[in-house]
Every structure is written in C-alpha cells, then in structure tokens.
C-alpha cells in the first residue's frame, strides 16, 4: 500500500514536472547542490525530477549569491529553454534564499567532470581577483537641488533581516539623507508569502515586518543619522508574490 502511495506521488510529481513550461515562474524549496568545475563551482538544485542551474561562485559584488550546504534553499526564478549549464536547466531572474534552520541532509558536493564545463569565462576566478570586483555597481546620479522626496527599497532573503547584502543600499540612503539635510525618514516594513510551485504557500515568520522596519531605523540612527524625524510603520499582513514582496521601503524627505 505504501509502495502504491509512493508510486502515485512519483507519477504526480513527474506529471507536474512535465507541465513546467519554458518561461514559467518556479518557486520551490529543495537542497542546493554544488558541482565543482575546472574553474569555479556552479550551484544547482533539483525539483520535480529536474535539475536547475542557479549560478556560479563569484564574489561579493555579484547579483547572485550562492546558497549554503547544510540548509535548504528557496529558489524563485523563471524557467528558460537555454542550453544546460553544469547539467542544469538555467533559470532567469533567479533569487535564492538560504532557509534559516539547519538541514544536515543537504550536503551534496559533486566533483568536477569533463562533461560539465562552464560555457563562459567566469567573471571571477577561484583565487584572487584580476584587480577588480567581478561586477561594477552602477554609480547613482548625483542629485541636484531642489531635492525631492526619494524612496529606496531593501529586499531580503526569506525570513531574513539586514545582512551582508544591505550595506551598499543603506549607504545610499545615508548619503541622500545627508546631502539633502533630510527632515523626515519614513520606513515601512513588510513580510512576504511565496506561492510555491507545488501549490502550497510559504509565509515569513510572524512579526517580521515590524522587526525589519525597526531594525532599519535603528541602523540608520546608529550610523549617525540622528537629525531626521523617523516615521516607522509596518504591515504585518503578508503580501503574496515574488521575492520583491519581502522588503522595507524607506522614503527620505528633504
């Protein structure tokens, strides 16, 4: 009976996999897999009987940050019909979130094989850089007076608060507030709900919108931005959608 149930489940899964069309948005929680190559490792994950390519190891300037063995990963992205990379189907607009709790079963590290080579030159070798960060950030235009209210958004990994990704964005807020002599900083925290491809929902932890909003205010004050008046609020009702729902908005009013 158990075997039958497993068989039915497997059939359903395969059918679901076959139904994932090119361009379709995918969201799933699974173990990440790291595969070595002759240069930098690439990162994969399996879902519905298919292997998806997430990205490669680069450096802290990249848009894509590889996940972590020992943890599950929430993968959000659009399936493409591009040629496989490292044995995986590439995803477009991919966002990965390391799930906070330990998952000691997620430990797959695959050794390099000649058949899995990167079809492009990695922007950053595994050793020291070639004299620059792999990706250059676009320089924001210097604002000119009269200064206008300006909004910024911080985006988060699932269930996460401020981390290593955020200093450069927080610095932009600081710079604009200082330049314009900001009178008010309005901060609104949100939390998200992700519609997974298996039909279920994954909702961020309770109270997180408040935690995010208050944390951003504390950080800006702590970094020396104490003059402006802070208006801190949050919306605890989770917003269903993609990774962009997990956010804090910051509006600087000169």
């Amino acid at each position, binding site marked *: 009976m158990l075997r039958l149930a497993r068989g039915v489940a497997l059939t359903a899964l395969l059918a679901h996999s076959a139904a994932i069309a090119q361009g379709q948005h995918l969201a799933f929680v699974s173990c990440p897999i790291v595969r070595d190559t002759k240069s930098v490792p690439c990162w994969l994950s399996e879902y519905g009987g298919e292997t998806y390519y997430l990205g490669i190891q680069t450096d802290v300037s990249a848009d894509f940050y590889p996940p*972590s063995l020992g943890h599950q990963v929430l993968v959000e992205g659009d399936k493409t019909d591009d040629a496989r990379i490292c044995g995986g189907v590439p995803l477009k607009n991919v966002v990965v979130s390391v799930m906070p709790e330990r998952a000691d079963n997620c430990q797959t590290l695959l050794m390099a094989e000649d058949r899995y080579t990167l079809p492009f030159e990695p922007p950053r070798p595994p050793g020291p850089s070639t004299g620059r960060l792999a990706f250059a950030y676009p320089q924001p235009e210097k604002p000119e007076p009269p200064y206008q209210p300006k909004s910024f958004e911080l985006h988060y990994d699932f269930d996460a608060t401020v981390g290593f990704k*955020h200093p450069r964005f927080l610095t932009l807020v600081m710079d604009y507030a200082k330049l314009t002599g900001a009178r008010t900083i309005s901060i609104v925290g949100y939390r998200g709900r992700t519609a997974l491809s298996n039909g279920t929902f994954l909702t961020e932890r309770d109270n997180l919108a408040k935690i995010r909003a208050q944390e951003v205010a504390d950080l800006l004050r702590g970094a020396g931005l104490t003059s402006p008046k802070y208006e801190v609020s949050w919306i605890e009702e989770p917003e269903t959608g993609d990774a962009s729902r997990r956010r804090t908005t910051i509006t600087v009013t000169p």
Partner: protein
Amino acid sequence: MRRHVSAALLGGSVLLFGAVVSFQATASGADSTSVKEAPREWWSPGESRRFPEFLTYANKWGDLGLYLEGAPIETKGHAFFEPLGANGRACVSCHQPADGMSLSVASIQQRWRDTRGKDPIFAQVDGANCPTLPANDPASHSLLLTRGLFRIALPWPPKAADGRTIDPEFTIEVVRDPTGCNTGTQYGLNSSNPTISVYRRPRPVANTKYTTHQRFGVSPFIGKNGLPTARDPETGKPVSMNLMADARHPTLKMQARDAAATHLEFAGRLNAKQLSQIEDFERRIYAAQVRLIQAGSLVEPDGPPAFGPRNLANGEAGVLGNNTTRYVFPMGDAWKKPVAGESEEQRSKRESIRRGHDIFFFRTFWIKDSMHLNTVGLGNPTKRTCATCHGMHMTGMDSSNGWMDIGTTNLPWAKEVPLNPWNQHKPDLPLFKITCKPGVLPHPYLGRVFYTQDPGRALISGKCNDVGTVVMQQFRGLASRAPYFSNGSAASIRELIDFYDRRYNIQFSEQERLDLETFLASL
C-alpha cells in the same frame, strides 16, 4: 651576545618547558641604514633607552627587523615605555620589540626564570589565571606561561559604547571553569559585577596604518552584517574595527585608555600628551622578518617588495590584494632566477619561499561553515584560497571588518584536551554553553546550542552569529611571536598550518606544508 637557557620544570607535571631555548640580540646590518646597536632583548618599563631607527632581533627562523619611521625615541618619560599604573607595567611590557611588538611564550618563560615570577607581566590582575590564585606559583600563571594568554574580563550582559546594556541574543552557561574566574563569588557571572573571563594573546602593536585604515571595505555599515560601523569619536568617521580581537575599541587612543585602566591598573585617565606619545609611536613602528636562515637577507635592494619593515612603511594601506597589480604579499620577479653569489642552499630556500607564496595565493580548497566568510555572498562551501580571507595588501588581514569564526574557539574545531581515563591532562580553558534564544535565528552552522572556549565578538555585540568570531591578525613578524591564534592554540607555524589543513580538509602535501611554513616565517 648569546645565551642558552636550560630546560626548566615548573609547576610539577603541568608545566614542562621546551628543550633548550636560545635568545640572541643582534644588530645584523640586514638593512643598509641600520643603526648599529646591540640592544638587550627585554625592554623593562621605566628604562632610559633610545629606540633607534632600526633594530634587529634573532629568532629561531632568522632575524626580525623593526623600523621606526621618523626620529628615534627616548624612552625615559615616554608613555609607551613608562610604568603608569599600580602594577609596574608599561605598554612595552606586553609589546616587546624582540617579539614583533607582541609577546612570545618563549619570552614569557624566560622572564619567569629571570625574575622568579616577579616581572610585572605576571601581575595577578590578568597575568594569573585568576587573581584569587596564589601569587608566584607557576600553576597560577599556567595560561600565560604555556600559551601566552592574558585574562580579559568583559561585562555580561554586554555594554554598548554609550553605556546602555545590550540584551544578548543568547544565554551563556559556564560548563567548565578550570581557572575559577567565571563561577567564583569574587569574579565571574555570580559576582556583584558579573563578568566573563576569556584568555587571549596580546596583538602586535606595529604596522598600525594597516590595522587602522579607513579605506577599502570600511563604510558606515559593517560589510559582514549591515550593522553600524564603529566610528572614531574624534572625527566621526567609520573605522575598520580590526584593531582588537573582538573589535571592542575602534581607535588606538581608546585602546590605550582601556589597556591603561585594565592591564596597567592605572587609576587615572591618560592625558592628552600621554595619548599622543603612545599613538605617535604606534603609528611609526613597523615590524617584519628581515632574514631567514639559509635564505639569507629578505631585504636586499632587488628583493621581494613584500618583505621587511621598510617595505611595510612604504606600502599602501587599506587596499585589497589582487593577482595582477597588487598581490597581497608582492614578490615581483625577485628570486625567480639564480642570482650571482647565491649558494645552493640559499637558492633552495628562496625557491621554497616563492612556492609558499604561490600556495598562499593560488592553492584552492573548500572553505566551509565559517561564519562571516561563507555567509557573505561567496556560498557555502566556497572554493577559494588562503588569500581570499587574508586579502589585505601587505598584511594578509581582512580589509573590511575582519571578525570570522574559523573554529579556533568554537567546538567542534577548537583544540580540546582528549578526555579519557588514561589522559592525565586537564582542560585549561573555560568552556561555555551557548543557547540562541527563541525568536532569534539559529547560528547557520552550529545550530541553536553549541559550545565555545571564547565567545569572541559576541561578548561585545551580543549576537548569536558572532559567537566564536575573532578579528583576524596581521601576518607580519610571525617568526618572532609564537604561539598563534587569539587563544594561543597553535604553538608553531606548523601547527597553525595543520589547523587549517584539518579544518578545511586541504590535504596539503609535506612539501606544501614546508613551503607555506617557510613563506609565513619570512613575513
């Protein structure tokens, strides 16, 4: 001037000092502008001496060089060299020139023998495992005598810079207290002024333009976690936070004030002149190896630009190394080909140094489960090299705020005494049980409950993810200041390499170990 000191047995079975220890103070002339002076190796507080432009001291690997940029210093009346507090110590007590401006365990042991334990470095306040222990008994000073560790007592819960109490993200329980200083009634968590005592090595006070830079990686927010960066109260500018093991003081002056009050037991407050003297000296002193046995001089005119204190003084601070224009430790084309007059032995050693450099720079391995390294966008694991973390040009420090947990104090990686019925050795460091509170995300690699010998940065920040993180040190003058790591757990450069090999399953060959060891000793 060479003297040999026989092995000594101190403190019964606990303290058996190593075989023959030799000291030598020289003016080897390793630098063409050396001041020819043969200094005594130990600098006592309150002496009237001149700190010249250039000094060399012999160590087991060769010679260390010290370069004082600018005018020589007369130590009489100078705040770095004068005993300011009640216990007779000066800054120089624990920042000895012969030890690369740190303090080697060999010097500590020698000092015990020379003074029968009366030197101010053995002051009960932090030179004993706990002030409550009997004075002048080597067993009371075992952590200093065997691992070079001083006691650091920090308030619990932590206090922020503005004096407010921080609500920590974790609870801490003392599960082992061999020194008695964490559970006693006079000191420790049960005392009227609750503190946690941890045991750490003194950091080298040299090459400070690198440890205090305000350039690459320093921004208003800490690159590792997004929290506000500490700022210099005089300028309001963010600092690198790379000065101390737990980054608790952001500037040289603030560190000096704290050290005077705690280590020197100075009841007053350093005045502006004293602070200025201390900072001036600390900003002008550079230390690095200048000669390696068999390899010869490291600082010949056409030698590698990485080596020697003068190159450190001339180097660019606060920039990240790369593999095209600015290596972490630049070797240039030096020693690539045989040089006229080079002996076979010298040639062989210099080739070993170059190979060691290449291992440091290009030998990849999988770096895994290291907090504030694998969590900052590189992935876990990440296939990188030594130079990935040790990336700052000329020192191999982290150019941004550099606290990480590589497992030197957190279990299961930290060095622990094997417990079994046949082992008579007892653990000498405290052990703490850490429990991340409900509502706080668990430590990504250690979970919600784990054990540490020293919570490191977390004793300042109160953050669960900071437990066991320690600011990485500079790689200069290593040959003169064993043991290594903040808790002195690596007795030699070879043990340091072995730790990494074990921790990250690097699988170094014996030749790789030798070459890397030779390279590190040359720094």
